[in-house]
């Protein structure tokens, strides 16, 4: 990937108040662990030579989900223009893990950061046609203004961090 979408991605995330942490597959574990607030839950990561550290419960019970401070999942794509991450997946539990914990840590491959919405929808359409049942374009934390003022963290996470694997 060119440096350009990554620069845009970073500034878009910054505007949303989302921290972007760049690392490599070798350094992944040592980068991730300090970012975690315990207890942490997670789902399997699909990147070569990258896996969840032991500190992250990979097969959480409902109780563990509810009390989790951090939820770690992979993200299928990043969208540079918007600072969005696309949470895909199903049976492994990406949906509940990215929703219930107070903080969602999305792990994304550098090569999956796409420039804009147009490119993203071309990819998403392909994925949906090859049976990826679910894709959430998530931009920043969950939020509501329904109680009279803006509050971060409505039914979903109040904080989001993106960990980007530069060599993936």
């Amino acid at each position, binding site marked *: 990937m060119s440096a350009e979408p990554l620069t845009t991605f970073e500034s878009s995330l910054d505007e949303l108040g989302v921290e972007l942490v760049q690392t490599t597959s070798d350094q992944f574990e040592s980068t991730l662990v300090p970012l975690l607030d315990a207890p942490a839950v997670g789902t399997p990561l699909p990147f070569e030579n990258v896996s969840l550290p032991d500190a992250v419960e990979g097969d959480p019970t409902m109780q563990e989900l509810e009390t989790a401070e951090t939820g770690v999942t992979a993200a299928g794509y990043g969208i540079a223009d918007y600072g969005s991450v696309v949470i895909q997946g*199903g049976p492994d539990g990406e949906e*509940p893990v990215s929703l219930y914990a107070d903080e969602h840590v999305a792990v994304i491959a550098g090569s999956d950061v796409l420039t804009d919405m147009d490119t993203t929808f*071309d990819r998403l359409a392909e994925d*949906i046609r090859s049976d990826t049942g*679910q894709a959430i374009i998530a931009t920043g934390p*969950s939020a*509501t203004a*329904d*109680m009279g003022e803006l509050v971060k963290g*409505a039914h979903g996470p109040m904080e989001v961090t993106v960990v980007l694997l530069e060599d993936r």
Partner: protein
Amino acid sequence: MSVDDRQRKAEHIRHLLETEGNNVHENTQVFNDGRYESTADLDDYDGLKDEARAIKEDTIERLPELLDRVTEAVETNGGTVYLADDAADANRYITEVAGGRDVVKSKSMTSEEIEVNESLEASGADVWETDLAEFVLQVADEAPSHIVAPAIHKSREEIADLFNAHFDPEEPLETAEELTRFAREYLGEKIMDAEVGMTGANFVTADTGTLALVTSEGNARKCVQATDTHIAVAGVEKLVPTVEDLQPFVELIARSGTGQDITSYISLFTPPGDSPTFDEGGELGPGDDREFHLVLIDNGRMEMREDDQLRETLYCIRCSACANSCANFQHVGGHAFGGETYSGGIATGWEAGVHSQESAAEFNDLCTGCSRCVNACPVKIDIPWINTVVRDRINQEDATEFDFLVEGLTPDEEPGGMDLQKRLFGNYATLAKLGSATAPVSNWVAGIKPAQVLMERFVGIDRQRDLPEFKRETLRKWFEARGGSRVSPADADREAVLYPDAYTNHVQVERGKAAVRVLEALGVSVRIPEVASSGRAPLSQGMIATAERHSHEAYADLAEHIDAGRDVVVIEPSDLAMFASEYEKFLPEESAERLDSNSYEIMEFVYGLLENGASSEELRAGDGERVAYHSHCQQRTLGLEAHTVAVLDELGYDVLTSETECCGMAGSFGYKQEYYELSMDVGGELESQFRTEDARDRTVVASGTSCLEQLDSLLERPSQHPVQLVDPGR
């Protein structure tokens, strides 16, 4: 409308202005400002809107075929599609599927339209609204006041009082954060326990059966994930052909609505979903035998599709831009500017289509046709036109008795029995002619108390309004008496026809004279022929047949001048807007285009002359004169505010422009007894801007007649048209 009805309506509006107006105003303005800002960031906003519009046009055109397609796709995925004829049919099906199990819902206006909660509750199920605003309303037992932010009329304090009274928490709730945490926890339990999750859908793709949900809280995701049965409710018009077609909508919907670039979550579900769900023991178990039911609702939509005038309503993506950009909505909200379910400008089309014309009639008058929503709509729906059409239909329906007296007096095409107030304002051109012919007697009569009381009683003109004063010497008479144009066509650089609109000819005669002098000073030979009134007045009262007749006559009166190479110059922006927009609907395409491309707003024309070499020294220089300028709503929709500002700038005036969408007068609206207070409340915004320290010593200038009248009643300073400012004969 009877005297009592008008008073009741005025009373209802007054109550809302006092109780909900401030909250609605504050929030809709944040949304509206956000829309301007966020859409400005797009590289090609207009192109994106065209794309979205084209997709919706295509979808509605091919709807039967796409319904077959989506059914096939959902069934192939393992779900079920139910096409419900109406609300009762949908409720019967949904209640059967739910089978008395508890239901957690995410926000869906379509589910409000069919009132599914009542039906489910009658079957013994508990139904929980998990969207926080909908939850507030469920607790308060109130209806939404806005289609996107349903509890927009409630302040944090009011919600805290409500929750503290209803739930009696150990520690009283106070901050927005505390209220949110409390609701999240409370509803979290309901979500865990429920077996049925109900969502709406902002879009449904026909090719793959994918639902797109535009949300921010995350409750829709939870409602789907935590339950075994997913029921999605959507109107048939929510389809788009393919997944790729979602892109322009995803980029436009939040920008147009709440003014965010995008909401927190755009969920693309292709159900039945396979995320792990909670089993009875509360453990996460496999979600691979989830049931999915897509309930697509007709409820009048297929008939709207056959209706040439209402069809456009089906392109609506419920973004709320037409509510947020509307001055009247900003001040009263959806509890006045709304029907049984929907609110805002487009609601007239929805209510007439899915509920009834009576429901639309309740609030349709609140659309003044100011057109500020037109450019805000992401699918380019002509929302004022839909309001006009429905108003026309309501007029026709009211016309049951044949009233020979009124029929004989009014030169319109409308049937007898129509609302007298509307008829009076719709025939303004005739009234103006009579008024000038009998002035000053007509003005004395209109100005005396008993006459004003009678006017209020019989036609509903509020007695607190001063009526426009008709001038005995019309603009045309003055022009004739001075011997026509002082610049002969032979010496002229250009020839122009100054369109003698009813206000300029009979009431605001001075701005007409100023226009003549300004044009002549710039080397233009002027003519003021007799031209039929544009039809704006009858159109704004929903008298379409009359407006159409005017359009044919006005075109016939002007066509020859255009053929002779003369430009048509218009002072009153609402008449120019008729030529530029509504005439498309009345005249052959070529004629409408010819008139449009040869017509100019007066200051736009002056701008063009100056750009093409005319000398600005011929006009009255500003020498730093401080001016506060309020452009006209329709003029701004046509993109013509800038020309006036540019001319004044060039001439050395120091210009401050108003920041409101509309002055609140909006033609006849502010004269009507039932809307007088709302009109003054809307005008209050303009008033306070023009009373600030930076503005209070400025000369007040406005382009529209009704804006000038409103400003005159709001401020002590007199106001004038910008052309009077630059008039060398001033």
